[in-house]
């Protein structure tokens, strides 16, 4: 019935579009079908998109926000990379966000965003994303669209099979792609086999605040854990991880890790492990990892180093972990909305392998094992197989679902999206992409309730699609209308960074709760100047603290004297505007850090260490008003041994 409804809505939607086209005097022949593509993606001035799409930035370390169907980019949310545009990772308040056990790491490789869920349905509270390089998981508020928390993952490396969440956001998972010695130590690399471990970290999420905490780390054999997906609905309570390099090779992996005819999908019964841990199971081991939390009231992040982590040996929890044999080096690991089918895409094969959850449970209950690996039972391939999709494509990577019983799989080598039917495994349609498609995304397409209207294909190669911009091009995304039996390519647009994966959600869920300002009367920043009469300048040894306010179109104070060479000058600046989208900027000449963009009601701190005597200007960097150009001030810098009193003025 639900499917029928979706279909009806889609039908009415397209009927409206077509009738629109007819009004414009276009015929309803095949020609109109093509020209209506423009109408399908056109969002007229003043109108808004139907979906938000959050695309990971890959090597940009960030997350970008787009509208669908227009493909317009709305925002880049800084997550793992310093972002001079806003001062993220440069301001004193946000520098702690990028602290790790390795010190300040101002970049990462962000891959897989996932939106929080309740009962398997997108709830739009938070979006999580992994840092692949220096293993981290970030939580971003979908009210402020700001990164609120980053937790580092110890004993992990190449945090790739992340950040996927269980259907009530109980856990965010962080699986290691590279196995490493645990604990880290100096040892010969060629002794990898049986000495390295693959940590699968289950991070609990506080249902109220979203605060993250590593509940346990499952210490798996030293394979590479590539991608993962939580069970849904009937398979809720399980988590599935694709593996490669079950050979445990440590050199020339392109050959040496492609020897086994079958690798595995590791099926983890996390509820069983959770129970074991709650009953006191597991081993606490020393660790060192950062937990960084941004407080919205103080506008300030704090970084805490955690000293231990609970590890679980899978052999200590019988019945918690099984291996599902899956043809050669599977990459994507996807579970359909009903939770019945677990799809392992063998990136080196032509076929898709679909495992059945029910058959898996039956095989486990019947103890039909095909040996074991490091003590973990391996199920028999034939016993758990639901079906094989014979697609004719090459290099299947990732699968999403439309909620109408269809699945869509990307093929990297043959550059196409293939639509096939769950249960019958028949191929319904295939459309080329331009070129080398990685992930694809249907809004809600990895949840229990997909909004199956569009699919976005995220391509790795862009050449020939847009005007050339030298050797480097932004990556290309392509938008397909999937409301009909056949997919229709209706648009393509460039995306920033290298979007690996994306998450989409109807605008109607997020837009109404998007925050417009920070309330000044909620500002608890210790250095805030909430009213102009709180503005002042204080000296503490060689530190000078300037409590400054800003409003269209001046700083208070705007002339400051008594600063000396060798001082460390802190500008604590509070934006007194309480109006939507009226930030002010701040930039100081010769500053060895970035500008700040300060949102209405927010306080941010910028450090300046003047090195030269003189009278140095600062100014607002965001064209805020008709008198933006007048929004400026001076700091007089005197010699280190001068005895000029600190003074500050405005309008004198």
């Amino acid at each position, binding site marked *: 019935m639900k499917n029928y409804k979706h279909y009806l809505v889609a039908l009415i939607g397209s009927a409206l579009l077509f009738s629109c086209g007819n009004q414009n005097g276009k015929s309803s022949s095949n020609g109109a079908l093509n020209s209506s593509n423009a109408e399908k993606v056109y969002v007229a001035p*003043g109108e808004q998109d139907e979906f938000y799409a959050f695309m990971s930035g890959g090597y940009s370390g960030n997350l970008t926000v787009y509208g669908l169907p227009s493909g317009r980019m709305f925002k880049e949310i800084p997550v793992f990379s310093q972002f001079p545009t806003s001062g993220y990772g440069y301001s004193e308040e946000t520098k702690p966000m990028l602290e790790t056990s390795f010190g300040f790491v101002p970049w990462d490789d962000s891959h897989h965003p996932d939106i929080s869920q309740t009962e398997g349905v997108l709830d739009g509270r938070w979006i999580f994303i992994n840092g692949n390089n220096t293993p981290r998981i970030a939580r971003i508020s979908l009210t402020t669209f700001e990164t609120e928390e980053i937790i580092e993952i110890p004993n992990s490396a190449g945090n790739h099979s992340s950040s996927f969440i269980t259907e009530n956001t109980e856990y965010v998972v962080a699986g290691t792609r590279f196995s490493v010695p645990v604990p880290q130590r100096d040892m010969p690399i060629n002794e990898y086999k049986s000495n390295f471990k693959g940590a699968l970290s289950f991070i609990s999420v506080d249902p109220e605040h979203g605060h993250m905490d590593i509940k346990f780390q499952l210490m798996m054999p030293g394979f590479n854990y590539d991608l993962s997906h939580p069970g849904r609905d009937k398979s809720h309570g399980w988590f599935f991880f694709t593996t490669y390099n079950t050979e445990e090779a440590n050199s020339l992996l392109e050959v040496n890790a492609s020897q086994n005819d079958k690798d595995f999908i590791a099926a983890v019964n996390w509820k069983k492990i959770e129970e074991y841990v709650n009953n006191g199971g597991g081993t606490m081991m020393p660790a060192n990892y950062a937990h960084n939390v941004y407080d919205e009231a103080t506008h300030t992040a704090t970084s805490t180093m955690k000293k231990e982590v609970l590890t679980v040996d899978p052999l200590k929890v019988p019945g918690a972990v099984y291996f599902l044999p899956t043809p050669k080096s599977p990459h994507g690991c996807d579970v359909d909305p009903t939770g019945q089918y677990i799809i392992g895409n063998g990136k080196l094969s032509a076929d898709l392998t679909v495992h059945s959850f029910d058959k898996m449970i039956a095989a486990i209950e019947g103890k039909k094992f095909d040996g074991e690996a490091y003590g973990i039972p391996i199920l028999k391939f034939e016993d758990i197989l639901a079906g094989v999709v014979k697609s004719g494509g090459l290099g299947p990577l990732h699968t999403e679902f439309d909620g109408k019983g269809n699945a869509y799989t990307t093929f990297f080598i043959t550059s196409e999206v293939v639509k096939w039917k769950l249960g019958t495994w028949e191929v319904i349609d295939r459309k080329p992409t331009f070129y080398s498609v990685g992930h694809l995304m249907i809004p809600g397409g990895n949840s229990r309730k997909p909004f199956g209207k569009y699919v976005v294909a995220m391509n790795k190669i862009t050449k020939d699609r847009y005007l050339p911009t030298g050797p480097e091009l932004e990556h290309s995304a392509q938008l397909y209308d999937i409301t009909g039996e056949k997919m229709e390519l209706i648009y393509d647009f460039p995306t920033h960074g290298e979007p690996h994966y994306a998450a989409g959600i109807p605008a109607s869920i997020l837009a109404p709760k998007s925050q417009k300002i920070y309330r000044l009367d909620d500002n608890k920043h210790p250095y805030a100047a909430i009213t102009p009469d709180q503005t002042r300048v204080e000296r503490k040894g060689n530190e000078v603290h300037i409590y400054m306010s800003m409003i269209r179109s001046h700083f208070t104070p705007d002339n400051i004297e008594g600063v000396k060479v060798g001082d460390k000058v802190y500008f604590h600046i509070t934006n007194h*505007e*309480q*109006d939507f989208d009226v930030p002010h900027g701040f930039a100081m000449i010769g500053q060895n850090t970035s500008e700040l963009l300060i949102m209405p009601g927010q306080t941010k701190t910028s450090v300046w260490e003047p090195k030269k005597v003189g009278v140095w200007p600062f100014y607002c960097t965001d064209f805020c008003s*008709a*008198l933006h150009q007048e929004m400026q001030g001076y700091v007089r810098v005197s010699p280190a041994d001068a005895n000029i009193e600190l003074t500050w003025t405005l309008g004198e």
Partner: protein
Amino acid sequence: MKKASIVMMVGSLLLLGLYFFPLWNIMLGAPQYPEPLGMNIYIDGIKGFNEFDIQNIDGLNHYIGMKTLPKPEDMWEFSAFPKVIGGMVFLGVLIGFLGFMGKVNHKWFLGWLILMSVLGVLGMYDFNAWMTDYGTNLDPHAIMKLANPDGSPMSYKPPLIGKAKMLNFDVDSWPRAGAYMMFLGMLLTFVAYIMGKKSRNTKTS
């Protein structure tokens, strides 16, 4: 006359709405402000239509040298009006009660209405005078000084009632719930007067 007196009392009591609902509303919209800025004028002060509208209207107005919008303590009217309205409610109910008891006749109802109308007109006059001052008495150091085509300084006085165009803003100035309750109340006191008059005529004839 008893019925008329009850209507008189109800009519007077409707003025109490002015303590809870805005008397007047001025909205400033423009294509650039799909959510217009606005202010609600109460008998005891001005509040933003949305929480921070006053601050944002003041922010815009400072370019052209307008004074910031008055706080309740800045204008005697905001302390006087509640007292005047309170007094009129008391007086109206008292007259109605005395009418009910047969101590006064319907002409008192009309007397109350005339007094209320005079006070109302004075109030409107005062309101208009304030808006004129607010819209024309501009800071000589204003950042922008705009002139009409004839060279006279531009006025930013909002209309007392109705629509007007001020620079890129469409200004709407209309009565609100408090005023409608007051008008209805005054109408009822008039009805009370007519009813009182009729009941007297039927008695005498």
